[in-house]
């Protein structure tokens, strides 16, 4: 039995790989699936071009994996394509290095006439000097996570959300079991290997292997706009920096990011100053951005492995698989750190290889050719004979009822509450139907958690129309629905 710590892309990827090889696995996730960085990322299926200059290894990996993901998870990928856009202010010298880097990594790049680009993307301002097309795409992270989890369980593995790894037991220097703290209380589980895929928490988890690893944590803030403002991914053709990527994600657009060092993995939440900075940076490429209705802001934490700092101070997005037994820690303990969402499969494969080497098992299945079982995406069943609960994302009562878990989990699976009204109208509707199942009190607690989560995303973007939306939401809650919780 192998225990995988972390229900993000990497952890689920490792477990998916292992079950294919016939290795029994249990994934433990301290919160809900995707509550770490995998649920708080930009949504970009990298072509690799973003890293062509600073991080050639990652660039190559991204391009290979990009092509693989299109094959094995077509339902979770939207092949929008992407542009790299240089403005008059961006250095031409960098452009040359970038073209060369892409060529080296094998990433196909196509020059796009500026007029054509502006026709396709009216949001681009007048200062555009040069545009290239690259095979970027959009990655529907949650669909893929849920698909992987479903696949793991179908193959006899286990996925335990809301279960935290608290201790690793060893016998004679080798992993012998884990101690878990979950909904049902504390429990132990015997196992012969543990994989630490805890993302930003990997440093903390590694301390349980008696071989701590050092991670650099940096928070990246992203802004969500209510509508899809661009039809494809837009990158700025300049050295990677803040506010250089705009991703159209389903109906919304996500703009980011920033890079602010943080002390610990729990430091989630977008700050007003980062949001303001993003708006200013955005204005350079998208003159109309001030007018775009913003929806919310969120932040994800990058766990960058300190092993990979380059001469230019750029921390590589390359990943590392650490075999703690070989470094003097517990045998049978592995950590996987760094990397990208786009490269999760490759990371998982290499991690699984290391684990299987330790267990003496041979690889029999190749995840690069194996389809991930995906549910039809959210919103695909919108006209059944039940009332519409969420009008923005067109989620019916039946669609909501088909999902499992709390309101927040159903939100992730169906996108209910994620549209322009941010739960103003659908929140209570959904809680009422939930109350029929779990009782009024439990449903109200779920509603409170749902509201708190939604509110968190709105605090840093309280201006213009979004402030109007918030005022409406307050009036509906306090005056129409008579909610009476103590308020700050």
């Amino acid at each position, binding site marked *: 039995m192998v225990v995988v710590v972390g229900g993000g892309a990497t952890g689920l990827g490792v477990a998916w790989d292992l079950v294919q090889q016939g290795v029994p696995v249990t994934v433990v996730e301290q919160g809900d699936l995707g509550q770490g960085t995998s649920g708080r990322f930009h949504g970009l299926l990298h072509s690799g071009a973003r890293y062509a200059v600073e991080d050639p290894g990652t660039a190559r990996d991204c391009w290979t994996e990009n092509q693989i993901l299109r094959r094995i998870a077509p339902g979770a990928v939207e092949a929008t394509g992407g542009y790299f856009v240089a403005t008059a202010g961006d250095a031409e010298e960098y452009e040359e290095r970038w073209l060369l880097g892409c060529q080296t990594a094998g990433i196909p790049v196509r020059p796009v006439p500026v007029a054509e680009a502006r*026709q396709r993307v*009216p*949001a681009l301002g007048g200062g555009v000097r040069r545009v290239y097309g690259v095979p970027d795409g959009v990655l529907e992270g949650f669909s893929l996570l849920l698909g992987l989890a479903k696949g793991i369980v179908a193959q006899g593995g286990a996925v335990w959300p809301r279960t935290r790894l608290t201790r690793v037991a060893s016998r004679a220097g080798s992993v012998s079991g884990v101690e878990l703290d979950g909904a049902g209380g504390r429990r132990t589980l015997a196992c012969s290997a543990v994989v630490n895929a805890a993302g930003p928490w990997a440093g903390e988890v590694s301390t349980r292997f008696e071989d701590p690893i050092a991670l650099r944590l940096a928070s990246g803030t992203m802004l969500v*706009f*209510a*509508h*899809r*403002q661009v*039809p494809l991914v837009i990158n700025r053709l300049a050295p990677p920096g803040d506010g250089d990527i705009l991703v*159209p994600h*389903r*109906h919304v657009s996500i703009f980011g990011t920033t890079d602010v060092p943080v002390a610990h993995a729990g430091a989630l939440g977008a700050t007003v100053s980062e949001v303001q900075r993003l708006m200013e940076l955005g204005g350079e490429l998208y003159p*109309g951005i001030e*007018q*775009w*209705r913003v929806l919310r802001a969120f932040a994800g934490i990058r766990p960058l492995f300190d092993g990979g700092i380059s001469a230019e101070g750029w921390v590589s997005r390359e990943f590392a698989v650490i075999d703690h037994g070989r470094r003097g820690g517990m045998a049978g303990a592995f950590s996987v750190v760094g990397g990208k969402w786009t490269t999760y499969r490759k990371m998982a494969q290499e991690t699984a290889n290391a684990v299987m080497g330790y267990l003496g098992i041979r690889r029999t299945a190749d995840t690069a050719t194996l389809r991930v079982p995906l549910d039809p995406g959210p919103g695909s069943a919108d006209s059944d004979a039940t009332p519409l609960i969420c*009008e*923005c994302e067109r989620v019916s009562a039946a669609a909501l009822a088909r999902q499992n878990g709390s309101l927040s989990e159903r939100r992730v699976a169906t996108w209910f509450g994620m*549209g*322009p*009204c941010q739960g*103003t*109208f659908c929140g209570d509707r959904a809680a009422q139907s939930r109350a029929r199942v779990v009782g009024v009190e439990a449903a109200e607690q779920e509603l409170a958690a749902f509201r708190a989560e939604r509110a968190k995303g709105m605090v840093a973007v309280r*201006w*213009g*129309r979004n402030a*109007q*939306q918030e005022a*409406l939401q307050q009036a509906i809650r306090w005056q129409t629905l008579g909610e009476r919780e103590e308020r700050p």
Partner: protein
Amino acid sequence: MRAGSGSWKAIEPVRKTQVREGGQAMWSDTDSCLKCSICVAACPVYRADPEFLGPKALGPDWYRLFQQGDTRPFAHVDDCTFCQLCEAACPAGVPVAHLIALQKSLVKRPFRMRVRDSVLTRPHWVARVPGALGLAPPALGRALGLSASAWRVRRRRRPRFDPLAAAVSARGTVGLFVDCFSRGYDREAVGAARALLEVWGFGVREVPGQSLCCGAAAYASGRPAQAGSMAKQMAAGLARDAQHLQWLVTLNATCDGTLRDEWPRFLDAVPVVPVRAFDDVAAEEAPEAFWRRLRAGAPHPPVALHTTCRGKVARGEGGLSRLAALAGIAAEPLDAACCGAAGSYAFKREHAAIAQKMGRKAGQAMPAGTGGLWVDSGTCAVHLEEMSGVRARHPAVWLWEAWQQAAHGPATLRERE
């Protein structure tokens, strides 16, 4: 109804028309929707037509999908009358009705319907040969998808009076904007308005000199591009014919709103001189003596007033009451949001049932003992008269008749000078 509505945007006014997307105008505030449903509360069709999804679903909700690349129109989008009451109610400045018009432009229609709509969206063609409609056999109309209402439209002639010989006058010359419907079918209103303006001391020129259309009908039928080119043609026509006039007087509330509101914001055109609606001109420019005379005239039976939906949107409501009060005529506003005529809407067969339903409701709202109905749009007047049996005319016609009664004929025209 505003550019850059009640938010910080208002501080730096923005025009709705900002960027062009594949030749299609893109507007600001298309993503501003708060999902409050105030627009749904304001939509008259939503109440009458159980199939109609309503402005929120058809406007901002649909547009969000459209931006994601799903260009399929929703069912029954054509049932929207383009009255714009939804848009006027919205607290977030969402161009709801215009988004719906954009959606209508994506509907695939059968050939016959396209033929019919090419005609209906060019009312200036019809106005050139107003008799043609009556000559065609009704069977042909049915085949083309015209409703029976289209056949009941009768031409009304200019009232008999001798216009003052010269159009030179103490207060200068103004343009009387002759809209397509009035040009073809309601010479009565044109004549009455002209006579009144002359009585008030203005020289009058009817413009544009040839039959052109402001684009309102085309826009309402989901042909924004065609509306744009028609508006530009009309603007050029006005630039030619109206350049030296003080201002234009409009008789039709829809055309009035189109010239003043739609042109600059959505159609990239501007009228060459200021545009004023007939009732504003009457209230603000007619000499006090005129009103005294009317008030002293024979008592008039009480009337009902219908401000058409586009009039409500562009200017508001209550202007007709003010006129009636000045004239000393007891008046009651008709309790109806939109009568269902909506330009050529009621002339389309697929809309006949809804238009009738809305019109009947308006007819039922007619107060007892009403001696007539004042309506600031020719097509609405026809529809309401059909639905209620009460004589419906443009206020200019009513005022002119009252004036003639009070002053016994054209002799007094000269007396005033």
